[in-house]
């Protein structure tokens, strides 16, 4: 995982609540056995006017001109601004893979669905929860200015807007640590290998039926 560093990035507004993971990456693209290449199919049903198939050359497909990511002013966006309960629905990790592969590093919303929240951080994608009011204000600012950017500083847990306003955000200490240092969870957990083995022994002695072999 890459280390998460402070950056200034263009913000794309997706003005929609309850964006589900089927919308982020439709099911036909889940058939890949790889972790990369999902970016061209991010928001496929919204982004293109035809029905997408895996492995297709997307550069030839008709674009939906009304969709925000197809508008010239939001090209190269790295921050996605959206509404409440983003990422609801299935546990597919293809959703954060697609967002990242497209080029997003940060998603800002008033709230996120649980499984998506976990999956995003495990892939280096920072999710920032702001109040409904703050999000509303950002939507207005983005709308008002072409090429609107935000300065995202995870270390200090703050966003600096183009007007110089500072928006502070909360992030769990462990997730922050992993993101800033690009750490892999498994390696960290295996440092506790002995504790896991000891627990396993005790657990098996107390409840042996949990360890039954296949009948």
């Amino acid at each position, binding site marked *: 995982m890459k280390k998460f560093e402070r950056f200034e990035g263009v913000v794309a507004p997706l003005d929609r609540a309850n964006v*589900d993971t089927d919308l982020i990456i439709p099911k036909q693209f889940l058939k890949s056995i790889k972790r990369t290449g999902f970016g061209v199919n991010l928001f496929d049903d919204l982004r293109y006017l035809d029905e997408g198939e895996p492995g297709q050359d997307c550069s030839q497909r008709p674009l939906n001109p009304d969709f925000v990511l197809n508008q010239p002013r939001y090209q190269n966006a790295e921050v996605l601004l959206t509404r409440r309960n983003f990422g609801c629905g299935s546990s597919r*990790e293809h959703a954060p893979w697609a967002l990242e592969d497209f080029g997003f590093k940060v998603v800002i919303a008033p709230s996120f669905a*649980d499984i998506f929240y976990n999956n995003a951080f495990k892939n280096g994608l920072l999710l920032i929860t702001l109040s409904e009011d703050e999000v509303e204000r950002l939507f207005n600012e983005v709308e008002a200015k072409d090429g609107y950017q935000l300065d995202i500083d995870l270390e200090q847990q703050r966003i600096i807007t183009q007007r110089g306003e500072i928006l502070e955000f909360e992030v769990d200490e462990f997730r922050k640590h992993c993101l800033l240092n690009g750490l892999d969870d498994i390696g960290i957990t295996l440092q506790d290998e002995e504790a896991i083995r000891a627990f396993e022994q005790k657990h098996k002695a107390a409840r042996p039926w949990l360890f039954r072999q296949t009948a």
Partner: protein
Amino acid sequence: MSGQTLYDKLWNQHLVKQRDDGTALIYIDRHMLHEVTSPQAFEGLRLANRKPWRLDANLATTDHNVPTTLEERAQGNSGIKDPVSLIQVQTLDDNCVEYGITEFRINDPRQGIVHVVGPEQGATLPGMTVVCGDSHTATHGAFGALAHGIGTSEVEHVLATQCLLTQKMKNMQVRVEGELGLGVTAKDVVLAIIGKIGTASGTGCAIEFAGSAIESLSMEGRMTVCNMAIEAGARVGMIAVDDTTIDYIGNRPYSPTGEQWEAAVADWRNLVSDPDAKFDNVVTLQAEDIEPQVSWGTSPEMVTGISGQVPDPSAAPDETVQRSHTRALEYMGLQPNQKITDIKLDKIFIGSCTNSRIEDLREAAKVAKGKKVADSIMLAMVVPGSGLVKRQAEEEGLDKIFIEAGFEWREPGCSMCLAMNADKLGAGEHCASTSNRNFEGRQGYGGRTHLVSPAMAAAAAIAGYFVDVRSLPANDATHAQEA
């Protein structure tokens, strides 16, 4: 000190290590795998040169991509026409062979939807932690287990460490008190719950479903309710252990036997919330207020009773809701204030990890018996949840009832719930579906899903539009309830 909730007990029994930063390592007893969310996890193991921690904790099956027609299934994996689906199925087979993980392959009679297979085999037991790379893993919580969906990175983490790195959730209880009316099923209960509390109010919570109406449900019904906890935002749904739970588990292939069975049952009896346990949030519904439910929109909270109507977005409480209702009606091709019973259907899907168990098929068959699917219905399909459910249904003659009525009787798999195989809706088609999600495009590009119970789906197949199962002659609807 106040008592513990069921969730607190399960958490404490599996806590390996609590870290100062608020995260914790939780030991995982059962890990279920399927072909869609596991290939990248095995690839990760391979790249890091790691091995699975404990092989016998894992159980795999193929479900999402498998075709459901007998003709295709007769050819095994080579009957999978979509080459990309085939690669995914073969990859799971290969990974299970390489690492030595038990897998129920495509034509194994035990193959089926992962959340049907686990409980059916007794591989899901009370007091277990159960995870799977699928958000509907909460299904297994019906057994007094701590079960939740995980992402692919976590699948890899569980394979490598037998632990999940997580944080403790809040305790939420949803109580349904009273007696359910005739023709009102577990599916209607959970849809009514989501309609009341919304798709996000369970976020960050483990929901325990309780109350007399929940206790009256069979294990199949309880699984239906827990299955959809994620549709209320909660990763975890659970129900306390009682006689119904223990009766279901006895004599299944993975269930304990003899002295171990006695010890296990004694232990499982404690898997209930203490009377003085504290919940962060309690919501109560009255069973008598719940009528058969039909979703009208593109989120499971967009649901109403069969006697209801599609809402008028202009009457929405705030602008965000108004916009999402407007968009939903446009996508669904419905008018404000349209009566639910005026929605005409094109396809019918009875199946999915929510409603493909034997009780679900019995309920649908009772409604379909001696009737014919309406001419206006292009396709009505019944997809059993597993090979064993299919066999049982055939022993009871349910297959004949469906076939004679004009339904297609298919092979087990996830099928049209998420349309990863060939079973899909066409653009604009309305489907009465017993699945769990009505998101845009979920059942096929441009497809329009209405979530309902199996009895309601069968009744809609016969009529061609939604009808109230309670209005059917007594020998249909009332029997549907008795099953």
